[in-house]
């Protein structure tokens, strides 16, 4: 009988075991709910999505590169449409990947609210980084999927879907173009306030990064005054230029992350590689022709072969679709342009000369001088074209400058489809400068589609 009691007792003990405690053990070391600032730090260090999210659309439609017949015919359908500006909204990633980063940033911001962690410095930095990334993602999405925004003008039209919450159940329509720019500017300005002056790694943004991104944005929307303010902040952290005379022009990868003093923040587009990096993709001959014989960029950044010219001058240091990080050369060009537009000829020319001196062979460069701001501006824009090739900048510049007949150009692509040669053109201010929202997003999100 004793044993009965014993065993019965055992059985009862079984059921009384604190099941909750037994069952509350974490199931795995690899996943969990973000529960600490450390978790958020990890989320924001996820390079593949945080530093390489930039959409291919900013390079895919530019006149930086071209594909030969084989290259064009070998493209997948969704890439083909984008290459020849007859996009049907088939490529998801240009929309999905930046929004994935926005969701990541939203998770960080929501978790920060939930966490009760006593580390105000780190908190501030994380919040700043999340806002920087969200603002930048909205900025780049708007360059692909919204009509150009012009500062101080009437900007009616559709903006982006302003997702500020990670909850999937929330369904919101597209915001106005105005609100879209207000949101991204707010995010980036807040980031500027919150971010530390120096970040420990080049993959993490800091104050100068946020200022430089704002400068890029203000320039794109023709707010030259604020662009200059921002560029000044950024340059106050770093204004060192790399002398291309010291770069090994034979190297397959002339720029390294550690050996490039111009580099302030590293970022890029991996998707754009589908267009620009194939064996059958080459630098557009018209672009290559712009470099003068004693221009070092011609040998440092490019390689020539029988079939065409290849670009090898990415500041990312590896084969990546385009470099979109922050570097001093872009800041000089923004500064010069803002000064030129503000009619400060001498000052502007000085910035331009400083930059070009480091790009030409020693003794191969004669300092420029201008007596009217139009010539100066033209030259600055030309240098922008040359210096910032394969940087995702060209598309923004085309959208911005096409509004002015003196700068507007028509892009052309020569293709052979079904053995018939065709020339396809993209006229200035064409609707095709705004891509279609991917049909998969429209289908499930019921967003208003862009015009065609």
């Amino acid at each position: 009988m004793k044993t009965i009691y014993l065993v019965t007792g055992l059985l009862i003990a079984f059921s009384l075991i604190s099941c909750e405690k037994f069952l509350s053990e974490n199931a795995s070391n690899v996943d969990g709910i973000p529960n600490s600032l450390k978790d958020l730090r990890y989320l924001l260090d996820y390079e593949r999505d945080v530093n390489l999210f930039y959409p291919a659309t900013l390079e895919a439609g530019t006149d930086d590169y071209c594909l030969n017949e084989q290259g064009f015919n070998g493209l997948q359908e969704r890439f083909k449409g984008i290459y020849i500006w007859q996009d049907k909204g088939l490529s998801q990633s240009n929309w999905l990947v930046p929004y994935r980063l926005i969701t990541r940033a939203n998770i960080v911001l929501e978790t920060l609210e939930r966490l009760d962690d006593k580390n105000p410095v780190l908190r501030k930095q994380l919040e700043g980084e999340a806002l920087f990334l969200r603002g930048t993602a909205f900025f780049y999405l708007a360059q692909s999927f919204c009509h150009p925004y012009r500062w101080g003008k009437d900007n009616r039209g559709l903006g982006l879907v302003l997702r500020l919450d990670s909850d999937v159940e929330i369904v919101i329509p597209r915001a106005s173009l105005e609100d879209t720019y207000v949101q991204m500017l707010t995010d980036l300005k807040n980031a500027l306030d919150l971010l530390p002056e120096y970040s420990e790694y080049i993959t993490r943004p800091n104050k100068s990064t946020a200022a430089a991104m704002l400068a890029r944005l203000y320039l794109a929307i023709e707010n030259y005054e604020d662009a200059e303010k921002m560029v000044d902040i950024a340059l106050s952290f770093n204004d060192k230029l790399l002398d291309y005379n010291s770069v090994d022009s034979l190297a397959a990868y002339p720029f390294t992350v550690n050996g490039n003093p111009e580099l302030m923040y590293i970022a890029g587009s991996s998707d754009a590689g589908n267009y620009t990096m194939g064996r059958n993709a080459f630098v557009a001959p018209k672009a290559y022709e712009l470099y003068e014989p004693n221009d070092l960029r011609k040998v440092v950044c490019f390689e020539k072969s029988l079939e065409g010219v290849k670009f090898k001058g990415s500041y990312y240091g590896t084969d990546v679709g385009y470099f979109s990080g922050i570097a001093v050369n872009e800041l000089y060009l923004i500064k010069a342009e803002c000064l030129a537009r503000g009619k400060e000829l001498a000052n502007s020319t000085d910035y331009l000369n400083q930059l070009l001196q480091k790009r030409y062979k020693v003794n191969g460069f004669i300092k420029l001088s201008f007596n009217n701001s139009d010539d100066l501006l033209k030259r600055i824009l030309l240098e922008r074209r040359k210096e910032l090739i394969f940087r995702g900048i060209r598309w923004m510049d085309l959208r911005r400058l096409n509004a002015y007949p003196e700068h507007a150009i028509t892009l052309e692509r020569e293709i052979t489809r079904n053995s018939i040669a065709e020339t396809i053109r993209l006229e200035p201010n064409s609707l095709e400068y705004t891509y279609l929202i991917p049909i998969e997003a429209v289908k499930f999100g019921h967003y208003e589609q862009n015009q065609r």
Partner: protein
Amino acid sequence: MKNILTLTLIVFATSLQAQIKLIGQVVDSTGHSVHNASIEVLGTTIKAVSDINGGFSLSLSKNQGRLLIKHLQYDNKELSFDNTDRPILVVLKQHMRKIDEVQVSTGYQTLSKERSTGSFEFVDQKTLEARSTYGIIEKLEGLVPGLQFDNRTGKSILNIRGIATLNSLQIQPLIVLDNFPYQGDLSNINPNDIESVTILKDAAASSIWGARAGNGVIVLTSKKAQESEKWALSYSGNINTAARPNLYGRNRISTNDFIDVELFLFNNKFYDATYNNTRRNRYVFSPVVDMLYKNKNNTLSDENLERAIAELRGVNYLDELSKEIYRPSLRQQHHISLTSGTPKLSNLIAIGYDYNKGQRIGSNDSRFTAKISNRYKINEKIETTVGFNYSNQSDDAYLEVINETYQTGGGKGFIYPYARLRDEYGNALAVPRGYNLEYIESLASTPLLDWRYVPLDDLGLSYSNGRQNYVQGQVGIELKPLKGFNMSGTYNFERQLLNSTAINGEESYYVRDMVNKFSQVNGNQIIYILPQGAIRYSESAEMQSHNLRGQANYSNMWKEHQITLLVGSELSHRETFANGFRSYGYDVKRKTSIPVDYVNSYPIYGGLGSYSRIPSGDLFNSSIQRFVSFYGNIGYNYKSRYGLSFSTRKDASNIFGVKTNDRWNPLWSAGASWTLSEEPWLTNEKWIDRLVLRATYGHSGNSGGGANPLPTIYYVPPSSNNISLLQQADVARLSNPNLKWEDVATKNLGLDFSLFDRAVSGQVQFYHKRSTDLISEDFVDITTGLSTIIKNVASIDGKGFEISLATTYSFGGFSGKTTLHGTKSRSVVKVFNGNIGLGSTYANGNSTALTPLPDKELYPVFSYRFAGLNPDNGNPRGIYNGEVSEDYAKLLYDSLQNLNYHGTALPPYYGSLIQELNWGDINLRFLITYKFGHYFKKSTINYNALFTSWSGHTDFEQRWKQPGDELFTDIPSMIYPAIANRDNFFGSSDANILEGGVIRIKDIRLSYRLQFKYGKNTLRGQVFASTNGGKPLWVQNKYGIDPEYINRPPQKVYSLGISLNF
């Protein structure tokens, strides 16, 4: 270990004190041995029980007397003996109206299959022994209705009665070994140690397993210590061999055609862009293309070019590969077991050894298993059991062995079909790998290590070794304080440790390539960043599980009522750890390694890559899975005619992120049975032996579906191509507060019958499985940052029936048994709340994904509408908006409703025929399986893939070449440039969808029963020869493609074996 051995020896000693020995064998009228018959010497207390082979032995004081032989399923028999020198043969006759009383095990109780309400399948030891395999699960293929082996993906994926979940990792049934869910690798189990297998198919059978039983349960019961007065030693062994593998199953393009394509492409300047590229060193070119350029540049004469090409046309890479890399396999299996017992203490010891020389050179593996089972009856009220299983597997293989799927890299895919591994003098030759071979050969004068890849010289320089140790122990105590009442406590423990090492030897291509890539060369000077010496990667993975179960059973019978009751609770805990690391500059002999710089990036030699870090290989992993469960079961029987059963179970687990209240998931089932043949109004129908009607209903589930109110993340180490080496995390799931557990409700209706004195017996079952709230990835608005999210999206209706029919017969000296199994099982998605993607999402691919869609079966097969070839140019045509179209972009992005829906890729009809014939001591058995009613997509030519990555198909020969060809071929013409969409459209059009019907002979086995006498003992056993596997007997498609094993024709295995019982 030592103690147990000593103990066992003592036990044997006690049972060896016989004076006069009488031995014999109990068989039935068909000659099959009868196990568990009790043999009593009348007028004495001497008793024995027949063993597995029907053998028994009695220790007597006199050499004459009378025996009474009893067995549940047979009529009692009495016979006298007056001579103990000769073994006695006892032939039992089956009860007129009694059928085999099969005891099935649910893992919580054993019960009589005939009296239960649920749907069970039972596979006994004899049947298991009929096929010699390495693992236990392979033995079950084709043996029972309702259990399907889906072999389409290269490995067998099991399903019981179709699919009841949308998580492809959870389709397979739960495997239970000796009453506990088996957590280790199934390969640890020596199939010779398994006594029987029970398959639980409906809710009444399986719902006692609760939230893990939604896909059915397979219960393995290992051999146990038997109460037997005689010790028994048995040996079984076999050797198996399979010929060299058939490498031609992938239908790769012939050499001749391939060279023609290369000439065609060269003339179209296809290679110019790459050949003249600044990065040409990174691109691989075939020898033909290299020679064509040399010829163009006037460094090779036309004559030499033509001669060289003509020579290459005769080469097929696969011929040489088959000879150099492959060999016939040879596997041997040995198993010895020793049993002994007294009424108080019984033991079993078994040892098994397998050794396999694999088909690929350098590969061999072995397995050693040991098993001890012990049962000790302390007194009438307390009994203890101890079981212990050990398994040690070792697996050696060469790494980096070139094979039929070798890819060259360097912008190309499968190597050109005229690759040669040896020249005419027998010297091993280099083949391209990763870089341009001409360039690599030009580096011979630099201080770099030889950078050529010579596959045959590389053999054995890189190798791997894996050792897996597995231990399982179980202790149980059973208390029987009152009649009909017992309580048991069981603790089960498993531990599995896998240590694997991969070594790329110092001389291997792998190491030379790594060292060279990181070398910095300046004239004759070389700086090594990576040390020379082997590169070693080792990994260990450990699994531990603990289970504790307490259970109380009660059974009683009064008047015409019979009741059985059980309640219990269980705790289970399973944890895994894994870690791995990589060492450079490893000295295999001295066991030393050299530290390297993982932090800084270094330039890659010759600009063959961008700045890179030395790859590190640290790995850490752990997981914990816990369950708490309560369960109960009640069975009631009235007049042994009317049976009722009810069972219930509640599970809770620590599945991550689940809210406390959602952790518990109650499930239940109920069933009834009616034995018509026991009804008074049927007892006079002499031709009916047995007739039972069964009906059940119940719920089971699939674990793993917890809601998470907050987003979850997962941690990843930095990748070596990251800019900053920082710990990282990615988003795993967004918040999902509304997720519910999956539920599977099953109805089952069954009729068991046995007629005409057992000449015909069988079973018919109908079932209806309704799986609701099934969790699947569902498309969402990509603006959320994800393209899919996990949701309760669908309900599946699984309907089907199963028929088993067996007849036994005998004529003259022959006797035989024919068993036919047939299953129909269709799983149709009834409710689907998910979003539907574009047509191409469903038409591309090989239907190996479950893909739920409303009113379609799982694994749906879709295709684009094919409208024949264009008679002018051989372009494939489709139908868009009702019109014939060649606009492939439109055709590919057409919506789903415009595609053809053929059906499912999972056979809805399948079954087998098992034929047994006996003539004297000779037994012939064969098993034929069939599968019908499904579809598959055949592979075909993809010109774009052929041009860019060298992967061609034999369909190339059948291509359209001139007008008129469209009348007898569907294969499009070759055009330049290739259009990927054109190829994709054709490849997934209905021209390539075929019906999947297939019939194959699974096994043929011929065996001969042996019986020798030595001294006073008899040696029994059998020898057998068998084959299994091989090509199908018949396929429904006209191309003769085996739809079950696409690309990988199964090998025919020949076996020879012997088993002996002392």
